[in-house]
C-alpha cells in the first residue's frame, strides 16, 4: 500500500506537458460543477439567470418603443428589430459575466474555503488553476447562452441565421482568449486587494457599459467610445451578434476578427505577465491565505 502510494506520488511529481495540465484543468472544472450542484439553489439560479437579465431589457424596450420595431435603431445599426438585437447581445453577457466573475474569483473561493495554499502546493502550473476555472465557466456560461437563445427564439420570436452559428462560435473562441487576459488581471486584483470584489464589480460594470449589448456604441459619449474600441468584449458581442443575425454575409466580420486577434495578443501577454508577477509577490509576502 505504502509502495503504491510512493509510486503514485513520484508519478505525480514527474507529470509535465500540456496534456497533464489539461487533465488538471479538467479536474478543476469538474470539481467546480460538483461544488455548484451541492447547492440546490445554484441549479435554479443557473436556469433562471439568463431570463432575469434579459426580461428587464425587453420591458424597457417595450415601454419605450411600443412595438417590435424601432426606426431609431434602424438608423443607427441598420436593423429595426430591437428584440433580436438585444436578445443576441445580452445572451453573450451571461458568458462574459460567468467568465469574469466565476474565473476571477476562483482563487478567492479557494481562499475562503482554506484550500488555496494546498492547491498552490500541488504539482501543476499556477495558471492552470485559472485555466481550469475558466474551462468550467466556459461550460457554465455557454450553456446559459444556449438556454437564453432557445427561450428567445421560442418566446420572443427572435430569428437567427443558422449559417452564422459556426462563425459565431469561432468568435467565442477568439473572445475567450482575450477575456482570459482580462481574467488574469482580475485574479491579480483578487489576490492583492483580497476584498477586491468591489474593484472587479467596477471593472466588469464599466466593460459591460461600454459593450454594445443592448445599444450600439454610437450612443455612448465619445470618451467611452474610445474605451469601447479597446475592449475585447465589444468586438466579441459585435461579432457574435453580427454572424447570428446576418450569417456569413455579416459585413463587419473582418473588423471584428482582426480587432479580436490584436486584442487577444495584447491582453494575454499583459494579463499573463501581471499574474506571474502578482502570484510570486503574494507568495513571497506570505499573504496567500490572508483575508
Amino acid at each position, binding site marked *: 500500500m505504502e509502495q503504491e502510494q510512493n509510486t503514485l506520488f513520484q508519478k505525480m511529481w514527474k507529470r509535465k506537458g500540456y496534456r497533464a495540465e489539461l487533465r488538471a484543468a479538467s479536474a478543476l472544472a469538474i470539481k467546480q460543477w460538483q461544488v455548484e450542484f451541492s*447547492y*440546490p*439553489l*445554484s441549479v*435554479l*439560479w443557473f436556469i*433562471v*439567470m439568463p431570463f*432575469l*437579465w434579459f*426580461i*428587464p*431589457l425587453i*420591458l*424597457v*424596450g*417595450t*415601454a*419605450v*418603443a*411600443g412595438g417590435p420595431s*424601432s426606426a*431609431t*435603431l434602424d438608423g*443607427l445599426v441598420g436593423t429595426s428589430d*430591437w428584440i433580436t438585437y*438585444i436578445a443576441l447581445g445580452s445572451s453573450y453577457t451571461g458568458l462574459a459575466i460567468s467568465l469574469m466573475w466565476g474565473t476571477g474569483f476562483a482563487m478567492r473561493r479557494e481562499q*475562503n*474555503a482554506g484550500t488555496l495554499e494546498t492547491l498552490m502546493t500541488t504539482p501543476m502550473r499556477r495558471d492552470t488553476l485559472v485555466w481550469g476555472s475558466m474551462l468550467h465557466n466556459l461550460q457554465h456560461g455557454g450553456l446559459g447562452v444556449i438556454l437564453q437563445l432557445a427561450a428567445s427564439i421560442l418566446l420572443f420570436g427572435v430569428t437567427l441565421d443558422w449559417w452564422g452559428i459556426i462563425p459565431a462560435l469561432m468568435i467565442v473562441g477568439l473572445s475567450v482568449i482575450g477575456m482570459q487576459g482580462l481574467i488574469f488581471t482580475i485574479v491579480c486584483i483578487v489576490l492583492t*486587494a483580497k*476584498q*477586491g470584489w*468591489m*474593484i472587479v*464589480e*467596477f471593472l466588469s*460594470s*464599466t466593460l*459591460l*457599459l461600454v459593450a454594445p*449589448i*443592448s*445599444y*450600439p456604441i454610437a*450612443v*455612448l459619449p465619445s470618451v467611452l467610445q474610445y474605451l469601447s474600441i479597446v475592449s475585447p468584449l465589444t468586438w466579441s458581442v459585435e461579432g457574435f451578434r453580427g454572424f447570428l443575425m446576418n450569417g456569413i454575409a455579416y459585413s463587419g466580420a473582418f473588423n471584428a476578427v482582426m480587432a479580436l486577434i490584436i486584442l487577444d495578443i495584447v491582453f494575454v501577454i499583459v494579463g499573463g505577465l501581471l499574474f506571474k508577477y502578482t502570484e510570486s509577490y503574494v507568495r513571497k509576502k506570505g499573504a496567500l491565505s490572508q*483575508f
Partner: protein
Amino acid sequence: MTELIQNDHEASLHQSSDYLETFKPRAMDWTAAKTFAIKNLRIALRYPANILVWGFLPILWFAPYILMATAVGGLETTAHFTEISGYGDFIQFVVIGWFVYMYLDNSIWGIGNNFRWEQFSGTLEPLFTTPVPRISILLGAAFSDTVQGTVQALILFGISTTMFGASYAITAILPTIIILLVMVIGLYGFGFMLAALILVFKDPSVLSELVSETSYMISPVNYPINALPRPVQFAAYMIPTTIGIITIREIAITGAWNLLSFSQALIALGALAVLFWIIGLACFQFAENWTKQRGHMGGF
C-alpha cells in the same frame, strides 16, 4: 509580574461573574445592536474600495437603460412611454426608481450576507452564543446597511441629477423622508427573511442574486408598473419599495402632495412592515433552530 497578571485575571473574572450574576435576558439590547452596527461600518470603511461601490457603481448599472432607451426611442422621451407611465421624461423617471431601489438592494445584500461573512471569519458560532437577543444582532446589521444604503442613494442621486440634468420638486424632501423611514422598517423584515434563508442554504451569492434580480425585474425602477402582466403587478406590490418608488416618484416629479394617496401609501407600507417583521422573525427563529439542531451553524 506573574502576580500582577494573576490579579488582573482575577479582577476580570470577578467583573464577568458580576455581569453574569446581574444579567437578565432582555427582549431587545440596543447597546448590542449599536455595537454590531458600528463594527460592520468599521469593517466597511476598512476596505477603501467600498467608495467605488457606494458612489459610482449604481451609475454604471442604470446608465445602460438610459442608453438603450436612447438607441430604441431616440433622444427625446417617446410618446408611448409618456402614455403608459404618465411622465414626460424617461431619465427623471428612472433616477427616482434607482434612488429608492438602492435601499432594497442593500437590504438584500446586507443583513443575510453579514452572517455569511461572520461564518467565513469563524465568528458566527461565538456570535450566536453571546447572551444578546437575536433581534439585536439582526437590527445591528440592518442599521449599518441603512447607513450604507443612504450614503449610496444620496451619492447616486447627486451624480445623476448633475450628470443628466434631472430636477425634482424641493417640497418632496419631507414626504420622501417619511416614506423612506416606513419603507426601510418594512425592508428590515424582508432582510430578516433573507438572513434566515442564508443560514439554511448557506451560499449567499446565488440566493441573494436570485432574490435581487427577481425583485429588480418586477420593481417599477426602469418602467411603469403597468408594463408588467397583472399577476406580476400583484407580486410587485408585495415588495415595500414598489409603493415607495411610485409615491416618491409622483411627489418628486409633479411636486403635488395629495394627502389622501400619501396616507394610503403610508398605511400600505406600515401593513407590509408588520407582515414582513412577523414573517421575517419567525423565519429567522426557525432557521436558527434548524441549523443548530443539525450542527450546521458554522458549516459551509
